[in-house]
């Protein structure tokens, strides 16, 4: 069994309530933190090597150290609980089953940053989780962990939950801030970064739920202890939300460094493939990251074991690697149509583009439409080049990373599964049924593609 530091208490009956959480050592990190210097907590988080768990993997302690403390403006910590990346459902699990852990982390982290007013921004669809958090926050206030002069320390903190209303883009931190200000979720041009000018133009840090939930353990045990867990620069544990064609989908806490092969096949985690069908592809870190074909899942291109770490999953760059991302781990078997799945992702990004930047607003629509016609047997041979061309013109040309996120899945699908696109264009009769690869997986018909010249 791997070590658990986030979900170790999740199965204790009644852990959702303040009393049970407190009896099991809850809020001790706040007691300890209040006796420490705020900057010493930031140092511990730096030492821990904790990297942002929302997807980008930026070191949390370093992000904290950027916050402007000189201007004297009020500072804010905002927790990003707008979990919307397809394949990702880990933060929901934490908030639903052990809500006080996030609140404890918010208090400890807010103290470190010198914030007196902090927010948790949760996606609107998680409305029942919003209510769970509201209740837990009320309990924390009632027990003196929030409000004025917390536990006689002289430190004041107000914490509230703010609910969104269905917009993937609000997971981007500046769009999230706009939304928190009661506006449309249009990302801001950076700089200035939120650490200088964020919520209401005040210095602001935005961190993912899982990142903040790791802080209490780091404060209690020290950053150096945290850094001993995991492998090299991938320190600590990571929540992985696994879905797709696996026997045991769900949320798992892993020690970083186990192999991908173990994660997919061990009964402790995914439990292997449904009906023992062959593994065809993997999206290891949420829909935005490049899809990996079967031969690059268990081994890197260099032939070493592929591990569940930031470094190993990105080994080989985009040519032969991917990213750990948010830990949204989607497994596909041989009945999956890569063209249809890529179209599905493109539809998502088209729907979720905020419309601010032309390459993303128009380009995502083009990607969706062209993929749809290929998937429906109306594709042309030159469409594959056209797709490549469009995605390359979105990437890097937008204010926020949604444009990149829309481009990468298309590029990776063409890079690794080009023959499948060609098959759709050349054999329109064979792909009429949307479940075309269920009866006859692509591996059975692949030989047709190379025989037929254009």
């Amino acid at each position, binding site marked *: 069994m791997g070590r658990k530091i986030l979900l170790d208490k999740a199965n204790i009956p009644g852990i959702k309530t303040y009393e049970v959480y407190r009896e099991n050592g809850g809020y001790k990190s706040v007691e300890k933190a209040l006796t420490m210097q705020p900057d010493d907590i930031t140092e511990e988080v730096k030492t821990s090597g904790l990297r942002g768990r929302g997807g980008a993997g930026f070191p949390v302690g370093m992000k904290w150290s950027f916050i402007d403390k000189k201007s004297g403006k009020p500072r804010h910590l905002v927790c990003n609980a707008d979990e919307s990346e397809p394949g990702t459902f880990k933060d929901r699990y934490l908030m639903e089953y052990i809500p006080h852990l996030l609140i404890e982390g918010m208090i400890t982290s807010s103290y470190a940053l010198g914030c007196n007013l902090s927010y948790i921004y949760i996606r609107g669809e998680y409305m029942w989780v919003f209510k769970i958090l509201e209740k837990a926050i009320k309990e924390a206030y009632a027990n003196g962990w929030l409000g004025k002069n917390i536990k006689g320390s002289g430190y004041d903190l107000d914490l509230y939950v703010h609910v969104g209303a269905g917009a993937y883009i609000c997971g981007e931190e500046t769009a999230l801030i706009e939304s928190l200000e009661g*506006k449309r979720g249009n990302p801001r041009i950076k700089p200035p970064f939120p650490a200088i000018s964020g919520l209401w133009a005040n210095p602001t840090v935005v961190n993912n739920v899982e990142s903040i939930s790791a802080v209490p353990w780091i404060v209690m045990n020290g950053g150096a202890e945290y850094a001993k867990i995991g492998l090299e620069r991938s320190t600590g544990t990571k929540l992985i939300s696994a879905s797709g064609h696996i026997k045991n989908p769900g949320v798992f806490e892993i020690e970083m460094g186990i192999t991908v092969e173990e994660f997919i096949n061990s009964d402790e985690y995914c439990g292997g493939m449904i009906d023992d069908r062959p593994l065809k592809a993997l999206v290891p870190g949420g829909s935005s990251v490049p899809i990996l074909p079967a031969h690059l899942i268990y081994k890197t291109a260099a032939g070493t074991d592929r591990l569940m770490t930031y470094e190993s999953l990105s080994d080989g760059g985009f040519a032969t690697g991917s990213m750990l991302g948010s830990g949204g781990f989607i497994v596909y078997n041989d009945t999956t149509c890569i063209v249809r799945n890529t179209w599905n992702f493109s539809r998502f990004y088209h729907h979720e583009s905020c419309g601010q930047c032309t390459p993303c607003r128009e380009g995502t629509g083009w990607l969706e439409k062209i993929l749809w016609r290929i998937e429906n047997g109306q594709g042309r041979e030159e469409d594959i080049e056209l797709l490549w061309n469009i995605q390359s013109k979105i990437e890097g040309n937008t204010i926020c990373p949604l444009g990149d996120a829309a481009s990468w899945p298309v590029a990776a699908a063409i890079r690794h599964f080009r023959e499948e696109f060609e098959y759709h264009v050349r054999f329109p009769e064979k792909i009429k049924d949307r479940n075309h690869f269920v009866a006859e997986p692509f591996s059975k018909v692949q030989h047709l593609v190379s025989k037929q010249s254009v």
Partner: protein
Amino acid sequence: MEISNIKQEINITEALMTRINELISHYPADKKKSALIPVLHEVQDAHDNWLSVELQQKVAEILDILPIEVYEVVTFYTMFNTKPIAKYMFEFCRTSCCATRGVEDLMEYACSKLGVKEGEITSDGMFQVVGVECLGACGYAPMLQLGDFYHEKLSKESFDKLIEDCKAEKITLHDK
């Protein structure tokens, strides 16, 4: 601006106003606008799950902002409805992980069972089948959202049961 011909009765009850004021209190006194999205949820829930232009204007008044500031937000976020919806709107997640686990078949089943196309409302105003993007329930697919709650790991049988429960008024849409 889209104008609905259907009149919406506006009723900001005392209980609703108390809740709105509680939400406003979560933000600094000069940042009332920040409460807009949480307030819109409460107001929509209390008004048959949609927001007419008149109702949006009422929200603008309450928050001391311009009607356009409300309208531009309502039209940006998918959870706000500018037209009346069915009493029970089944929002199926149709993104990759759910598609992989059979949501397309299930949505077709739902449509044929209820005799509607995607998006349409049944003639009695009771049901509607809608496809939406990722709801963050990828491991529990196929699934749908109904009001404030998720119904996960669905099958045709459990979906049938859900319809029966709706008809029997056993389903709560909002937790107030």
